[in-house]
């Protein structure tokens, strides 16, 4: 048994993750619905997580996977806070479209 990446190739993972990451970016830019934007950000984070695991395998090293735990914690915390903000916005203006957030400008 040898490194599984010998069969897949780390580049492929990189490409996959980059694409996924970009889809996340795309989503953030494309959608005005804050929830979907959150989801896109989660996609971005997941792309990175996946890459971490791939690199972890590449290096045969546990640290990458450990880092994924932290990353997950961060993602969870972010989502929690984000949603809290979202809820208070929703309470105030009754909408979660980020297009409505244009009071501050200039």
């Amino acid at each position: 048994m040898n490194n599984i990446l010998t069969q897949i190739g780390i580049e492929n993972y990189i490409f996959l993750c980059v694409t996924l990451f970009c889809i996340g970016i795309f989503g953030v830019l494309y959608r005005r619905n804050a929830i979907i934007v959150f989801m896109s950000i989660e996609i971005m984070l997941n792309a990175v997580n996946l890459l971490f695991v791939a690199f972890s395998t590449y290096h045969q090293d546990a640290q990458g996977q450990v880092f994924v735990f932290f990353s997950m914690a961060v993602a969870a915390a972010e989502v929690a806070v984000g949603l809290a903000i979202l809820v208070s916005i929703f309470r105030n203006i009754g909408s979660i479209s980020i297009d409505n957030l244009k009071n501050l400008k200039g």
Partner: protein
Amino acid sequence: MTTLIAIIGLGVLCLIFEIFDFRKAIIPISIIGLLAILGLTVSEFNSPANYYNNMIVVSKFSVSFSSLFIVLTIFLVALGHNFYDNHQSKLSDYIAIKIFLLSGAVAMVSFGNLAMFFLGIEILSISLYVLAASNRVNVKSNEAGMKYFLMGSFASGIILFGICMIYGAMGSFDIVEISDMSQSAELPIWFPIGIVLVTIGMLFKIAAVPFHFWAPDVYEGSPTLTTALMSTLAKVVAIATLYKLLSSMHADINYSFQIVVVIVSIASMTFGNIMALRQVNVKRMLAFSGISHAGFMLMTLLSLSTSAGSLLYYTSAYALSGIAAFSVILYVCKNRENEDVVNFHGLGKTNPLLAAILTGSLLSMAGIPIFAGFFAKLVLFSQTIQAGYLVVVIFAVINSIISVGYYFKLILAMYTKEPNETRTGKPFLIYAVAVVAILLNIIIGLFPSLVLDLLA
């Protein structure tokens, strides 16, 4: 390391106080605690060490910056006394978050492992998201929080991606190992990409062009005290961290990278200053001013090996004047709907002391001598010229000139306009903070060696 533990302990203590209903004691205890922590931190100055598998590295750099952060936090906590007097039930939360935020900040400048760095920055960011949005009934605050959150997590994603790339190249998160390995010749392209992405993420945090767009909106919308925090502490933390990151990864070797820094730096100062000219809202104006200062601070990245001292000096000068300015703003704009310049009319007559302090801090930001801002710019220019980037210095000079335009708009409003309404009450803490901050500013202005030599 003890600093970090103590800070966290203090944060928890705050929360416990709330439980036992010692609300009144929270701010005094926090201030005293922070002062003690400051002493603790300073005592570590001459004993650099690594802790816990190199997770935390205590060095002169980290200690000096940590001390600066602690000082700033003391100010910010003290200002909270007046600012949160209508939000007593949330006081402990606010203070605790600030103290935790401080722990994140300290972690960021004393990290020895990218994991600590990442967690630190996330603690900082999340605290800021919360604080920005903390005035939940105010739509502007909500909006500010939301905008900051969206963009901030986007930037976090970028940073994370960068860290991942670095890990991919190095197979380690340890900063020393990375540093060692980065010296070797054969490096996968992932490493520079990682550095660049992390840098971009950090540039977002310090609000450099073109990643600055959030700053004015968020500064304006956030509660004023949060703005103060963001424009002083958060910005300083970010630039210090970026400096530390890049210097430990030897990013300055790459010429193209320096070009990028030059461009971003010039763009930040120019854009920030020009945009600030037509602002009516003082917080917004200071946001743009902060963007331009970010540009200035970025100049330190051009001579990474030598400029730690000047960065510390610049950030101290900037942050102290920022604190002084914001304490005046807090006083003037309390119970006002907005922070427009109109509110400052005639302050020179109604309240000469605060007007003088605000003037002083603005002059410091503009870089007028005896205020620390001048020396900050001076050493910066000096170093940048030494690094061979005269062009940046010239742009910086031109920008300093432009910046006078809007700083003086505020000064003019204070001294030439008629006061529109008298303010009563002289909140002791605000006065104290303002006076102490500006005095500190002047002191380090008169004796720059005090700070400059720390990291020489």
